[in-house]
């Protein structure tokens, strides 16, 4: 029986190559015990998964009795998001003028954050990768730091950045740069670790030094990955730069927050529409660019 668990069956792993085989009878017996144990393990994990699912659904205590009134109320407000039956072009033009700057700021935050984050991540990924360029304890430490920092949500960094730099999009860009740096640092390190070893051996066998190993064997393998992950995080950062705006870091998010506070539902609708268009546009462009070099 094949079991795709964490460890291969002990019978396959432990026996040294040149040792005589154990007697077939005991071997069979051992294998049977093995499969019984594995079956028990599989059952146990299935039951455990089920129990966790029950716990999660039960714990939330879904209560749908408010749903009917909630839908009615929400839909009456949602209607306000859409500019229906109106011809106030002067208002629309004024709105466009007020939203143009935040729209640009959102894009600028995402772009600056992505570029700065990627530039910072590049050297750090070296320290974090277990490739032999840095001693193992250092890479373990850097990786742990990255993992810890990654667990903190972007909003927290945005709040910190706002209090450090002040309200506005520079704070948002800093927060996004930091978050990008952390996630790309980890992803870049993983990219370096998953490089095919063959070309590295070939460069070493030809007498190349470790710098040449990196330039000729590793970089060509990781560069496409580096660029496509960077573009992917740009897509992500457009959404993030909207969210950090809500805590005062400028951009469309900040405008949306203001519009909601002032009950300007139509403004809010327009802002959300802008975001949808922007996110999809960036996704599409980035997808096309990524496809071109993968």
């Amino acid at each position, binding site marked *: 029986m094949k079991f795709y668990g964490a460890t291969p069956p002990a019978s396959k792993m432990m026996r*040294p*190559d040149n040792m005589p085989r154990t007697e077939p009878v005991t071997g069979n017996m051992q294998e049977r015990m093995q499969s019984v144990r594995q079956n028990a393990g599989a059952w146990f994990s299935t039951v455990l998964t089920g129990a966790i699912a029950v716990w999660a659904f039960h714990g939330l205590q879904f209560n749908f009795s408010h749903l009917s009134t909630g839908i009615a109320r929400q839909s009456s407000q949602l209607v306000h998001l859409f500019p229906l039956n109106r011809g106030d072009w002067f208002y629309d033009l004024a709105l466009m003028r007020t939203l143009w700057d935040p729209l640009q700021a959102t894009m600028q935050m995402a772009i600056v954050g992505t570029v700065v984050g990627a530039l910072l991540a590049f050297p750090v990924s070296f320290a974090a990768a277990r490739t032999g360029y840095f001693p193992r304890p250092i890479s373990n430490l850097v990786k742990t730091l990255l993992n810890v920092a990654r667990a903190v949500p972007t909003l927290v960094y945005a709040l910190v950045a706002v209090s450090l730099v002040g309200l506005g999009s520079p704070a948002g860009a800093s927060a996004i740069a930091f978050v990008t740096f952390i996630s790309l640092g980890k992803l870049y390190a993983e990219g370096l670790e998953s490089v095919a070893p*063959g070309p590295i051996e*070939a460069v070493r*066998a*030809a*007498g190349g030094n470790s710098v040449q190993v990196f330039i*000729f064997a590793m970089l*060509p393998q990781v560069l496409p990955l580096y660029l496509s992950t960077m573009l992917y995080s740009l897509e992500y950062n457009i959404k993030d730069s909207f969210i950090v705006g809500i805590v005062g870091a400028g951009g469309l998010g900040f405008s949306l927050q203001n519009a909601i506070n002032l009950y300007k539902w139509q403004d809010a609708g327009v802002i959300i529409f802008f975001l949808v268009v922007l996110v999809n546009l960036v996704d599409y462009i980035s997808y096309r660019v990524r496809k071109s070099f993968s």
Partner: protein
Amino acid sequence: MTEVIAIENLTHSYQAKTPVLDGVTLSVARGEIVAVIGLSGAGKSTLLRCVNGLVKPTGGTCRVFDTDVAALSESGKRLLRRRIGMIFQEFNLVDRSSVLTNVLIGRLAYVPTLASCFHRFPAQDVALASACLAQVGLAGYEKRWARALSGGQKQRVAIARAMAQEAQLILADEATANLDARTKTKIMEIIQDVARQRQAAVLLSMHDIELARTYCTRIVGLRQGRITFDSPASEVSEADVDEVLRRNSAGEQDDET
């Protein structure tokens, strides 16, 4: 004939207990094409890697070009390696680089590090790389991407890479194992040509005994880290071959080391 490789009583073990190489004594002279045959896991790859210092043996000595490999410093090993061409089963080309760049990897140890980082190679190195490509029948392939080539073409690029090193010793680790029958003979012919032209020594690991008989001058049997026979290709008997390629313990098949 001058000896290029002189291995004496070489032992190596990756883990404390099971030795991969167990007292191997072997010498290879200029102009010789020596095949080491044996099953997967017999220690062939490890033996080859001890010769160019990619693996540090745990015992015995390995002298190449009259220098003790194990005693060399890291930079000394690099200077030795640039005189030793190596060809691999998986070709080990950089797929996302051009064919020319892959061949120029053979020149890396001859150019300054900083210049090589910016892919600046002397004109004569580029010319040499092109000449090597032409010699393996791939003239005009310089700008192609390595990943776009067939298996046989990739291996020819790898041979050109070794030739660009102007190596006097070529190590080939199962160089034909991933190729179809016709390509195999083609690759062996190219290796034979190179060896003759440069009076280079060639040490190959392989498990195809017929191929070894046709193209090699000497055949060495390696079984569980020990040499079972070492004789001119024409004198190798069926019994010798059966002895070395017999599969009785399943463990030997499991891992390629």
